[in-house]
Structure formats: C-alpha cells, structure tokens
C-alpha cells in the first residue's frame, strides 16, 4: 500500500511539472485542460491472457492490453470502414481475389527491426502453418492462397476465391516482428515477442499483473487516435482482479485508476458519482443466445423451439437480472455492425405465452405432470441447456435461472441447466446430445454468422443449433462471395428472418458489452471504433 501511495504521489508531482510545461504548447485543449505527459496508470482487468501472442490468443477480454504492443495494417471507423495505419492504403483487384497493401516506410518494431513487406508476409505465412497457429490456421487465413512481397513496401495477398470478410481479417491481423518467430517464447508470448505499438511489454507476473512502458519512438498512430507521437503515460500496469466486486472496491479505494468489467449492480454507483466516469459499449458479433438443437430431443420440433421463444418475456428478465444495464438482443448479429444488421427484426416476436401454449398443444405436449410441466407420452418436456463452466460470466447463471423460472411458469417447459467442464462440453458438442447451448461470439463482418449458421462440416464450427437447411449454405456462400455491401445486407437479413422467426434456431437474449469505470483523474479512455473493445492506453492521460 505504501508503495502504491508513493507512486501516486510521485506521479502527481510529475503531472504538476509537465502540466506547467505543456499548457503553453498545447493549443487543442480539451474541456479538462491539456493532456498531461507522463505518469503511470494501474488498470484493473478481469481476464488474464492465456498467451501473450496475439495470433494465438483468442480471448477478446485481453485484447485491450495486447493492443498496446501489437498493431494492424488498417484501423476501422465507427461504421465499419477502413483507415490507414501500418498500411497507407489497400487495393482489391477487380475479380475480388487479390488484396494489395502499401506499407508506411517509417515504422520500426520495438526490437529495432523495420516493418517491411517481408515482415508482413512472414506473419501471414506463419499463421497459415498449423504447427505454429494450431486451430487458428483453419480460420479466415485458410482462404489465403499466397502472400508475397512485391517490393519493400507492397504486400500482395491472393485468395483461392472471393471471400468478403477477408479484408476484416487481413487488416486486423496483429503484426509481430519477424525475429520473434525464432524466439522460444513465440507461443506463450513474452518480452522477446515484439510489435510496433506505443508501449513495450516490460514484465509479466503471472496471476498478478502485466507491466508496459512507453515506446518513445512511436510516431504512427492511426487517425482514429486522439493524438500523435508517443503515448502520454510513461507506464501502464494491468492488474488481474477476477472478482467484479473486488475490482469495484479497488477503484473506489484508489488502488487502481480504472477498471473494466463492471457488474450491473455497480454500474450506477460509478455513473452517478462525479468522482468517476463510466462508459459501456455493446460487443460485436452474435449476441448471447440459446441455440436450440434441431437434431436432438424435443427441440427437433420447430413448434417447440418457437414455443420456448414465445413463452419468455426477455425484457422483464433482463430488467430483473441486470437492473436494466443490459441491452436486449433480437437478431443473429450485433446492431453495432450496421452494414449487416437488419433492425426490422426488433420487437417482431416473443413474449406471447398464449401462442407458446397453443404451439405446444399442437405439438402434442398436452398433458401435465405433478410438477406442472408439460408431458407427451409420459415424457416430460425437458430442454437441457449446456453451459461451459469456464464461460459463465456476467451473471449468466442468474439469467439462465430466470429463463428457467419463466419457461416453467408461462409454458410448462422444463429448462434444465447443466454447467460442465471443458472436456464434457467438447464431448457434448461433438455428439450433439444436448437440448441447447448458450453462446455468443465477437467476430465482425459476417464471420460470426458463418461460424454459427454454416453446416457443421462446412465451417460452422459453433453451429449449436446443428441446422443444415440448404438455404443457410446458399445465402452464406452468396454473401461471402460478393463485395457488394447492399447485396450482403439483404442476404443476411433474409437469413436472420429465416433463422430466428421461421425456424427458431436461436433465441437471442442480450448483447454482451464491455464497461469501463475510471476515477475522474483518468482522461482519454475510449472503446475501439467498430470493434468496440476497450482501446489501448495510448490516448490515456492522468489529469492533476
């Protein structure tokens, strides 16, 4: 504690001095005064990275800290457009199969290597190799036929066939310095794995914290950032605090400057207090939904699937579980992705217990047992929701219980919930012996939809409804093979109506979101445009 106090005092002294110096130079002063150089920041985060290699790390919750070190070819705009970053521009050939990126010529990795076309090519070819990237090699990179450097600054990526989401993937791949691939740390990540970012990994204490220092040579921020040149902060520490109440307490007692992951109960506390700032952003990708198994148990019958969706008043459930701090979801992807999300589906279904009971009567679930559940031929109407224990977060266990209560009360459906370990989860997924799996994911540009709705054997690796209607494959193939955004929007809109309203493959519940609460001293905290994850510490500064 002494140590913390001490560093705070030291930091405060630094601010005082640098504020004096900079107030004379900085013309574009914000309402809170000009940004202050220097200082150190402590950020309480929920999730510890499994690996610090951004290619192998699949945890969205840890991207905020990896992004301090690793950068991408293009940045995204709020509405999903692309802006220069490490690349000054890109071109797509007329046949849609060749992507050419032109690189900046002034970028160096923190180990001193220059960012050139060969370095970028190394990243793409390495990622294609399953010996390096494991299962990531079967993702979007598998569409890549060849990557080559045309000259020092030009990278050409050619695809096997047109794949619309490719630009999202290629422009968003974190570029690692070529020398890193020879390090023994390459898979776990570490100080030898370097990037071009505004901070440099200094120290990682497993189970405790990760510490970054400023990269003084940094000069290539994208135009989405609020300033140019090196980061304001001298250093930033991310401390791992997995309990949300502990994070909140650490913030209120001044032991950390900001936290991410604020529970619905604590959100009001920070939002309504002028001593703190609070902001949240909806995630991208498929919302948290119950995927209803079309190949096993009662949910094979579309009437049962529709009945479950009709039975439950999701708005009321969300209000009681999250105190109104979460947003209702309606479709197959997040409303953030305005290029692909058809909002006309909102409020067009659900909360109709009468319809629900009619459907169940029609489906033959007419009798009731002693506990009030519907039965057919002596069998209870049971839908088993399988949820991996490791992914229970954000009070989803409470949410599922609330759904369970409503399903019983409104329609006599027995919604049982099984929390299982990763091994059992894998087995149940593989055998398809489950009533429903609850899941969300975050890829953008339709990749999220492909994973959930392509047939299992054809890329639908998390197709938990196990739906294989030929329409799905047709629409998804057509959408992926055109670069015409209007056409893609229409195709996904049709798929959305089909999947949610006609077939009830999925029951969308809520949009997961990220939250940041910070002491009022912390300035410049934001979410990434479009991808909506918390932004790196580049623009963050501490006012006096």
């Amino acid at each position, binding site marked *: 504690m002494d140590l913390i106090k001490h560093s705070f005092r030291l930091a405060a002294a630094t601010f005082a001095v640098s504020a004096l110096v900079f107030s004379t130079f900085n013309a574009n002063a914000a309402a809170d005064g000009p940004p202050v150089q220097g200082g150190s920041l402590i950020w309480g985060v929920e999730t510890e990275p499994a690996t610090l290699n951004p290619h192998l790390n699949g945890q969205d919750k840890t991207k905020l800290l990896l992004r301090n070190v690793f950068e991408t070819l293009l940045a995204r705009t709020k509405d999903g457009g692309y802006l220069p970053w490490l690349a000054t521009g890109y071109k797509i050939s007329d046949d849609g199969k060749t992507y050419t990126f032109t690189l900046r010529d002034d970028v160096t990795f923190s180990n001193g290597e220059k960012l050139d076309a060969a370095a970028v090519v190394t990243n793409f070819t390495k990622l294609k190799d399953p010996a390096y990237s494991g299962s990531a090699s079967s993702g979007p990179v598998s569409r890549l036929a060849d990557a080559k450097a045309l000259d020092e600054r030009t990278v050409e990526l050619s695809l096997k066939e047109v794949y619309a989401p490719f630009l999202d993937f290629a422009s968003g791949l974190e570029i690692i310095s070529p020398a890193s691939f020879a390090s023994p740390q390459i898979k776990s990540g570490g100080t030898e794995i370097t990037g071009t970012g505004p901070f440099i990994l200094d120290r990682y204490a497993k*189970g405790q914290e990760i510490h970054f220092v400023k990269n003084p040579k940094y000069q290539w921020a994208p135009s989405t950032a609020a300033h140019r040149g090196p980061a304001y902060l001298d250093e930033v520490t991310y401390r791992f*605090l997995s309990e949300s109440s*502990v994070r909140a307490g650490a913030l209120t007692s001044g*032991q950390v400057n900001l936290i991410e992951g604020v529970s619905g109960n604590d959100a009001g506390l920070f939002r309504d207090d002028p001593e703190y700032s609070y902001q949240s952003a909806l995630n991208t990708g498929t919302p948290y939904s119950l995927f209803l198994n079309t190949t096993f148990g009662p949910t094979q019958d579309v009437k049962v699937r529709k009945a479950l969706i009709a039975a439950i008043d999701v708005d009321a459930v969300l209000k009681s579980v999250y105190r109104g701090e979460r947003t209702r979801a309606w479709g197959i992807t997040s409303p953030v992705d305005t290029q692909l999300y058809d909002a006309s589906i909102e409020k067009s279904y659900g909360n109709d217990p009468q319809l629900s009971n009619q459907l169940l009567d029609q489906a033959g679930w007419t009798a009731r047992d002693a506990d009030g559940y519907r039965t057919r031929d002596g069998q209870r109407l049971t839908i088993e929701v399988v949820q991996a224990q490791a992914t229970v977060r954000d009070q989803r266990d409470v949410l599922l219980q609330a759904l369970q209560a409503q399903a019983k009360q409104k329609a006599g459906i027995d919604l049982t919930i099984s929390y299982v*370990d990763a091994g059992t989860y894998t087995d149940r997924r593989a055998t398809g012996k489950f009533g429903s799996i609850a899941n969300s994911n975050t890829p953008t540009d339709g990749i999220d939809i492909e994973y959930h709705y392509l047939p299992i054997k054809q890329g639908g690796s998390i197709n938990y409804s196990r739906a294989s209607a030929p329409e799905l494959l047709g629409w998804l193939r057509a959408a992926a093979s055109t670069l015409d955004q209007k056409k893609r929007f229409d195709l996904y809109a049709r798929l959305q109506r089909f999947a949610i309203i006609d077939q009830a493959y999925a029951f969308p519940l809520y949009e997961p979101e990220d939250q940041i609460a910070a002491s009022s001293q912390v300035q410049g905290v934001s979410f990434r445009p479009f991808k909506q994850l918390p932004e790196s510490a580049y623009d963050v500064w501490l006012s006096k």
Partner: protein
Amino acid sequence: MTLDNPAFIDELPLGSPSRIVRFRHSLWSRVLGRVGSGVVVLWAAVTLSFASLQIAPGNIVNLLVGDQLPTPEVEAAIRAEWGLDEPLIVQYLRYLWRILHGDFGRSYVLQSDVTSLILSQLWPTLKLTSAALVVAIVFAVTAAVLTAGRRWPRRLASAAELVLVSTPSFWLGIVLLFVFSFTLKLFPVAGDKNFSSLVLPALSLGLSLGAVVSQVLRQGLENALEEPFALTVRSWGCSDLTLRLRHCLRHASLPAVTLTGWLVGGLLSGAVITEQVFGRPGLGKVTVDAVLGKDLPVVLAVAIFSALIYVVLSTLVDLLYLFLDPRLRTRNR
C-alpha cells in the same frame, strides 16, 4: 496420509536409559521410511492423475481445436506437437522418464514451460498457506489458553469460532477487503508484493482453520486442567497462565497437531478461492484452470508438487509428535 494414532501412547513403556539414542534411531528410520513411502505416493499421484485425466470426458485434440474448424491438418499438427499420436502407455512412460529428468513439459493452454510456471506460482501459495497456518495456530492457542475452563469467555469464544468455521472463506475475504482495504485503506487489495499484501488473505484463509483447531485444543486443555498433575503444579504456586502454557498445552496439543496436519491439506485447496478474491498469484487458480481446460502437463505437475507438500507435511507432523511427547520416542520400531 498415515498419521500415528496417539491413542496408543498409553501402552508404551515409559522412560528408558537410552532415550536419546533411541530417539535418534527412531528419527532416522522414520525419515528414511518416509522418503521411501513419499516416492511411492508421488508415483501414485502421477499415475492416478494421468489415468483420471484420460478417463475424464473430452478428447484433448478437440479441446485444443476449441471453437475453430477441426480440419485433419490442424488435428495432425496438434497431435504431433504434443506427442498425442503415440499409444497411451508410451505417452505415460515417456512422461515418467521426462519428469525424472526434471522436465515437466509445456502447458497445452498457456503454451509455456510447466516447471517454471509451477515454480513461479508455488512460492506465493506456500507463503499464503504458511501465513494462514501461523494465523490459525496463534488464534487457536490464544483462544484456547485464555478461555479453557472459564464459563463466559468460553461461551463467547465458542460462538465466535462457530461463526468463523461456518463462514465461507470467499465471503470472509470480501468482508475483510471491504473493511480493511476499501474503507480503512490499511492493506492493498491485490498481488503478492510485500508483507502487508499477505495479511488479509492469510486471515481469510487461516481463521476458520484456527477456529476448528481452537475447539479441539480447548477441550484438550480442559481435560489436562482436570488431571492430578495440574493440582500439583498449582500447589507449587505457579500462576494459572504458566500452568496452562507450560504444562497443560503440551498435553492438549497432540490431537490438535493431528487435526492441523490433516487440515493443512485443506488450506492448499482453500487457497484457490482466496487467491481469486485477492488477485494473488498462486497454484490455486493455475490448478483450477488446468483441470477445467484438461491441461494435462500442468495438472500432473500440480499433482506431483501437492503430493510432495503432503508428504513433507505429514513427516513434519510425525516428527512433531516425537518432540511433543517423550513417551513416543522410546517406542520400538
């Protein structure tokens, strides 16, 4: 763990001219016996963990593929990388061979070297559990000595102990944090940096153990205070506290030591929750994540290290009996 049952001590011959020699002999034979049985315990821990993880649901290759598309190339690469294409018995023997050479392999999930992972996390956990043990012993001895045989203090202490025993350590940790860290700002919330960051975690982990031991110790003290020797000591004019501390505590401590030895194992598993609440590094979270993710190399290494700790602890408990009770030292083995 086999702990010698102190109930047999009454049958042992008392006093002997060659007490010291026998004591040494007994000590060494016990240590040697312990090392031998310790090795067997370690081997059993490895083998059982290996077998149970094979039996547990979930194919490791599928697990490592995760949400991605499982293509044959990916599966082959994963099998090759982790040596999963060998028959199980070969994988098992190869593993035994490697750990004999100090190589615990690489974590499937964390992708890092298991030996350095475990070593980096072992020390914070040992610090936490030892500090918790100190808390438990200090609490138990103080509470028992001060309240044994005294009507009202005894009732109050028993009530407090009952509350502590039945308080989940998760909740106790949050309450301690709320009061002493968030409100009074006396101790830091998280990490493993200095002594002050150890205080609250040690209290939240150690108090409930202390409460259990205290009840047993008090009972023992009360029995000892009824013994004729207590009257003798009193007649010497000793103060009540001296009687309790210097004479009765030793008699009362045998069952308490046995119990503590057993419960220390519980401290190791209780450390999981404490580490999580306090954001401390340690084996606890590593273990839980490894088991949930079926991260075989980590689980096996944790099994070996925890078995090692158990063996060392139970040996220490056995040795402690010898020091506490002179009658045990003369026992022929």
